[in-house]
């Protein structure tokens, strides 16, 4: 089997950010993403639409360096003024070489399992 170790970055953001954040992801080196509708509660309770707590949950499988860039971007550009939470952790990915682009090509460590 063809497993690679990459990072899964998950972001829960207010809906108005969806397009802006996913554009950032691709710009920073992600090759794709998956989005789901969500709702939630946090400490800031920013009420940004007619459905309080409506959010989108975005996840992207990326190389470690891309994950770091995404998290930095989130913190610097979005975290202060918008309802955002973001986390990351390592995962083993089937044919993970498919999800690393350009300079990060070498980063998808093949797994010996």
């Amino acid at each position, binding site marked *: 089997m063809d497993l690679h170790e990459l990072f899964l970055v998950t972001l829960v953001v*207010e809906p*108005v950010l969806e397009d*802006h954040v996913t554009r950032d992801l691709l710009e920073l080196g992600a090759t794709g993403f998956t989005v789901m509708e969500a709702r939630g509660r946090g400490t800031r309770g*920013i*009420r*940004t*639409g*007619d*459905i*309080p707590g409506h959010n989108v949950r975005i996840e992207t499988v990326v190389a470690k360096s891309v994950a770091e860039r995404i998290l930095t971007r989130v913190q610097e550009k979005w975290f202060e*003024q*918008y309802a955002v939470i973001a986390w990351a952790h390592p995962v083993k990915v089937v044919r993970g070489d498919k999800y690393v682009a350009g300079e990060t090509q070498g980063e998808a460590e093949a797994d010996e399992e």
Partner: protein
Amino acid sequence: MNESGALLDILRANLLSPIPLAFALGVAARLLKSEFSLPRDIYAGLGIYLLFALGLKGGVELGNAPLAAIVVPALVTLGLGVIRPLTSYGVLRSVGRMGVADSAGIAAHYGSVSAVTFIAALAFTDGVGLPAEGFMPTLLAILEVPGIAVALMIGAVKLGGDRPTGEVLHEVLTGRTLVLLGGGLLVGALSDPGAWEQVKPFYDGAIFKGALVLFLLEMGVVAGERLADLKETGAFLLVFGVVMAIAHGLLGAAVGTWAGLSPGGATVLASMAASASYIAAPPAVRMTIPEANPTLSLTAALAITFPFNIVAGIPLYLAFATWLAG
């Protein structure tokens, strides 16, 4: 006395009809902590239906109306679109002593328009036998964008920074409201009368009004949800939401009458002018003036100005427009 008696009659006729009562029911359900709410997609679907129906009917009438009759009301409406964000901003800054970001954010909401308030005014004037001109939906389309644009400009100029204002205005211009309203106007205007007659009962009369009642039930739930925020947003905003509505409403009735609209038409224009956006403005403001607290503007638009207009504002503007005309 005669006149205030007439106003009371109008108020009563408005209150004892399913539209405000359904809204009140939604608010009450929320206050009783009921978990009732319309599914999100049904709420969105009803909103789409109402806007599209509005556009279609307006378009059919537009096809019949002499262009000359519309030009002056259209220009007057555009003027309202430019003036209302400025008055709102001015009052918020000078009387309310609010910051630039919050003032510009709220001004964008009060510069645009609430389509449901418009529809409720249409249904109301219709119900009391003073129907508005058929081309009113065209005016609604005209009033949607300029106020938002003006307010975002204020924000961009006063606050500086790198803001995606152009991109966001494109989103407003191609947003749901204008696609359905403007597009519906085109479809309605181009359709053969015979073809329109075959679908008309679906978009007009009891089905339209019945769907509006259901929509207002959920708007009551949504507005009721916001009532809790009133504590946080404070007394000034409460007064602002009512007084600004009355001021813009009376102004709308006056310029509408001046522009030649019937009392029904002037009432509907007044109701538009008195209303505040809660669909187009919020995301536009959020992306361009993130410093503004969205709770303030949404609470003012949805939990103060909208209910005020539905319950008392629209009849008030009608009384004023009738008085002006008489």
